[in-house]
């Protein structure tokens, strides 16, 4: 093999292009730090991390679906619906206009958590059924599911004695367990970060150490090869959606308490942040590629950009534009990497 200079130049160009996104993000952060050195503070970092937590848990669910070659547009609305359920079940029993006046004794926290997860799982299995058995593209199924979830959420919230009120005044135990933090010396680490980490570890083990995980990569990478190897494609697709459902359920439970007051607007565009995080974190839109650390990094990077733009008081509409360009760039680079060249 001969190595010519032009080849090396091409290689450098390739590498630069492949990592262009990270280079741009790091440059952006450096610019932020230059403009406002106070940005680097422990408080800001824990803020970013705890904000990234619920979105990160959703992203872990969506990532699996993207790896098998799908996507999920309904994640945000499913979260909204489930958050409403969670909040309604865990309003303070002293609150007069609570959703369920018949609940007079506080429920054990595990009950609402399980109910929330169950509802999210039902929505996701509906998506999974459409993909695995009806051979629809996940994009279309979840587009429909998104509306179904939103409509259900609105009806649920509206169905109160006093009309559509935000579901607030939550149980103190609920708020403590979600919004509390662990004090190590002078550092306060929100529990949320631990929940996120725990979910990440579990998903990491599933992806890397179980048959389901390996099958997931195989289905996304080459469904033909997976089929001839005797993998039950339908079952595995359903299981991936099931995991996504569990992730959404947990995220909903946490998000309701984090916000403290659930309206029909909760969950709007969450899927956008989750999918963006996945793509920035290197989950390939063409399927078969993606890692848990990548997803975590992607979500945190995106949240950092979000946070820093707000921190610098950038016009919120301009923030949308910047984020939009980031997504397009991320996907463009991803597609470029796996393009077959003629």
């Amino acid at each position, binding site marked *: 093999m001969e190595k010519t200079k032009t080849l090396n130049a091409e290689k450098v160009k390739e590498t630069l292009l492949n990592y262009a996104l990270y280079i741009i993000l790091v440059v952006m952060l450096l610019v932020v730090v230059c403009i406002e050195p106070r940005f680097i503070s422990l408080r800001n970092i824990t803020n970013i991390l705890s904000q990234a937590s619920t979105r990160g848990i959703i992203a872990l669910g969506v990532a699996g679906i993207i790896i098998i070659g799908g996507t999920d547009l309904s994640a945000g609305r499913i979260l909204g619906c489930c958050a409403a359920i969670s909040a309604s079940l865990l309003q303070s029993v002293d609150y007069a206009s609570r959703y369920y006046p018949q609940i007079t004794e506080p429920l054990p926290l595990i009950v609402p958590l399980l109910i929330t997860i169950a509802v999210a799982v039902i929505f996701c299995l509906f998506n999974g059924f459409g993909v695995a058995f009806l051979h629809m593209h996940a994009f279309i199924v979840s587009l429909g599911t998104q509306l179904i979830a939103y409509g259900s959420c609105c009806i649920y919230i509206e169905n109160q004695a006093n009309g559509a009120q935000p579901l607030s005044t939550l149980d103190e135990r609920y708020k403590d367990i979600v919004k509390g933090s662990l004090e190590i010396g002078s550092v306060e680490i929100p529990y949320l970060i631990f929940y996120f980490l725990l979910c990440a570890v579990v998903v990491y083990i599933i992806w890397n150490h179980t048959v389901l995980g390996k099958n997931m990569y*195989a289905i996304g990478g080459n469904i033909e090869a997976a089929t*001839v190897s005797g993998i039950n494609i339908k079952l595995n697709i359903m299981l991936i959606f099931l995991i996504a459902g569990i992730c959404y359920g947990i995220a909903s439970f946490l998000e309701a308490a984090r916000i403290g007051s659930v309206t029909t607007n909760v969950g709007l565009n969450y899927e956008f942040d989750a999918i963006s995080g996945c793509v920035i974190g290197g989950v390939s839109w063409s399927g078969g590629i993606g890692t848990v650390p990548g997803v975590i990094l992607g979500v945190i990077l995106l949240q950092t950009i979000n946070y820093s733009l707000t921190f610098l008081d950038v016009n919120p509409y301009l923030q949308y534009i910047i984020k939009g360009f980031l997504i397009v760039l991320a996907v463009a680079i991803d597609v470029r990497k796996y393009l077959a060249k003629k």
Partner: protein
Amino acid sequence: MTNSYVLEMSGISKQFPGVKALDDVQLKVRKGTVHSLCGENGAGKSTLMKCLFGIYNKDAGEIKLEGESVNFTGPKHALEHGVSMVHQELNQVLQRSIMENIWLGRFPRTKLGTVDTKKMYNDTKAIFDELEIKADPKARIGKLSVSERQMVEIAKAVSYNTKLLVLDEPTSSLANEEVAQLFKIINKLRDDGVGIIYISHKLEEILEISDDVTIMRDGHWISTNKAEDLTTQKIINMMVGRTMENRFPPKTNKPGDVIMSVKNLTGMYMPSCIDVSFDLRKGEILGVAGLVGSRRTELLETIFGTAHHRSGEIIVNGKSVNNKTSQDALKNGFALLTEERRATGIFGVGSILFNSVIANIRSYKRGLFLSNKKMKGDTQWVIDSMHVKTPSQKTKIKSLSGGNQQKVIIGRWLLTKPDILLMDEPTRGIDVGAKYEIYELINNLAAEGKGVMVVSSEMPELLGICDRILVMSNGHMAGILDIKDATQEKIMELAVKYV
């Protein structure tokens, strides 16, 4: 050497609509031997293998594995019985590691139920050591070369305790030293008592590695011989030894001046054509022959501009043209009839009208809109002059027969008024009667003074309709034969020149 058979296929027949793909074919593979399967493209080798693996249902015949009658329902089923195949197109999950690809669908598990990566690694390593494969089981398979990926596929077969291994054109993209490594592995497996079916076009290799050689032609079994009794010449004679029937229309075209000169054309991304130069005349039908993988399609695509070229020049009517996209090619008077009609030719749910006018759609613009009248007129021209049998212009093209679909596509390209027509396998999957009509069309086009290039895997077809035949071999142009001197044997000799 033992005489017991690991595989006995006898009386295998398979009929497709319009074609008898296999007719009473037999193949008997002895234990611990390499049995080569030879034949031209379309002789029925792959159909026979597909019948073995249950991808096709055979119409008649019996398959016995180690004396017991078997009927596989698919590759996975065959694998479980120790029968595996390494395809020319490797079916692997490129994003994942070597060992994951080997154990896909049957990962070993730990007591906890998680995947036992350690066992997977050790088992893979053990097989690799046995076969003397050096790759790291944890490496991503997409990073390996084609030959290494092939070795992995063979290792996968070994991991299923294979009794019978089918290798389909394993060396078509390998360099010499890689072939040596592959042969070492094949010999090792043979010594272990594995029966190996070796499908290849490379006759020297066949003679080097095989114990037995079975030759097929036109879906028939021709002979099975000991390799030591054969020579390449004998094999070629048996492969092509058929008489020509009156399957072609009389030639009416007369080649004139040069219309296109291709000079030192080399594709940008390999595999592609390498340093190909030739002239095409007005009114000439230039055939392009070659084996599978000889990059005939790539040559056409590179000329047409849908594949990039690294170097070289194309001169049309004395002017240098640079086709960077298909739009350029159309402007410069080129038309390309693609090989995979279903995948890249027809718009299946579109009407005859849509399929006829789509390549020429700009010329129907009347202001912002399209002129329906003109489109209908042109579609009628396609239907009439190509003799398309269709109930109406509105009929969906997918409901027509393959031959009629192809006529619409040819008509589509003629509407763009091309000077140079590039046709890739224009008669593939078309029955004999329709083929004759396509040949007539090609003939008439040439007679009108157009330059026509026809890629075909069927040598008799090229010999029947062409004025000259360009033979590709492994990306290189092996030579151009005038039709007066061309024979199947000569084409074959050129086709294997660079492999």
